[in-house]
């Protein structure tokens, strides 16, 4: 997982725990929690900035993992990507719901825009060995940062356009082309 390569198919601990969850074994959910909750909270915190919201996202994600464990199909993907997809979807919906209901508060996006979220900082933290890093490095820095802003901070096309003062159409087509180049590189 940490290498960024597609994880090997097969029944690892997470996959086995998900199947046990599907059969009603709550201790299996706890095993996933023990193994992954600190990193999940870190991922949610990076997207949501506020600790209370990040905890809410992780809490909801675990309830959804439990509820939908029977739908997890090890043939279609790894257990970890399944879990993190649920966490990401839940985090993004909280993030966008917060931005919608925000009135006078500082928008979340601008709150605590820490250096840790900065695209180039994230690049530097990617493992040297990761295929993703090598392929991101083939992109011009500005285009690379668009992809990273979308992933790391959960920004929409419109928010990226506003942040970087670029036309929305340009943002869309740059990201699209960057993804196609990345995919060619990643194989």
């Amino acid at each position, binding site marked *: 997982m940490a290498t960024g390569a597609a994880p090997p198919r097969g029944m690892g601990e997470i996959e086995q725990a998900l199947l046990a969850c599907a059969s009603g074994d709550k201790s299996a959910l706890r095993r996933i929690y023990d193994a992954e909750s600190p990193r999940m909270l870190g991922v949610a915190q990076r997207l949501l900035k506020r600790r209370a919201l990040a905890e809410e996202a992780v809490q909801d994600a675990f309830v959804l993992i439990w509820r939908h464990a029977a739908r997890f199909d090890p043939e279609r993907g790894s257990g970890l990507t399944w879990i993190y997809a649920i966490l990401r*979807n839940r985090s993004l919906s909280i993030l966008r719901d917060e931005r919608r209901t925000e009135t006078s508060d500082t928008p979340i996006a601008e709150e605590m825009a820490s250096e840790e979220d900065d695209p180039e900082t994230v690049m530097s933290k990617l493992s040297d060995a990761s295929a993703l890093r090598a392929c991101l490095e083939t992109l011009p820095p500005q285009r690379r940062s668009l992809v990273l802003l979308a992933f790391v901070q959960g920004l929409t096309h419109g928010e990226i356009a506003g942040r970087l003062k670029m036309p929305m159409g340009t943002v869309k087509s740059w990201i699209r082309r960057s993804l196609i180049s990345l995919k060619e590189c990643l194989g």
Partner: protein
Amino acid sequence: MSPSADTALPPPERDALAGEYVLGLIEGTELAAAEHRHERDRDFAASVEAWRGHLAAIDATATPVTPPADLWSRIEAGVAGVVASAAAAPAAMSRAAPAVRSRFSDWWDSLFVWRGAAFAGALASLLLAIGLFGALDRAKRQPVMVAVLLTDASVAAAVVHTFADGRVEMLPLQSINVPEGKALEIWTLWDRAVGPRSVGLIDSARTTPLRLDNLPLGKDQLFEITLEPATGSPTGRPTGPIIAKGTTSQRL
């Protein structure tokens, strides 16, 4: 740009769409189409899985955060609710995991919807406030604050009245279709740090008192109605689609 989900896409377009989908950049009807494609198109699903696997390297760079001691007990409480409601309605278990996204997605589908909702909301608030205040004056039941709850199509679905003696009630303005085994849950949000609190659960759209008890109540406080299992949200937070929402305004 959004061909039918049942037609195969050429590989570069398929992979770009899968990447945008994983990043969370697809919105509105295109998101619904992408979710449909994710269910049906194995090549697309494989591309989504490959993107998730590659981008996991970025998640791995997030600094781990030790969860607070009570997080697990909150999860257990949520899970206990699921077990109870799942026993009551096993059909609800058949939702696919990728559909989780769509349950929350309708709300941010479109900026236009929201701009429209904002304008329509202001207009509806004004018209309803004028109409309601006239009627309520005569009835000597003057609410202190009123919230008009709008659907995402900007239709006023319900109003919430708060009274000087602390009573709060919700009056439906539209009939709301509630499927078997489901209920309407009413929530209020006064502080995002605290999160939404459930203040009522009804099986059909009818006038109902809301239990705010000791919860704060003020101007610009959000009220919303979501569709939840008949026993209420399993997580203690809104999980189902939002039927309508709006914020309180002070009576003049």
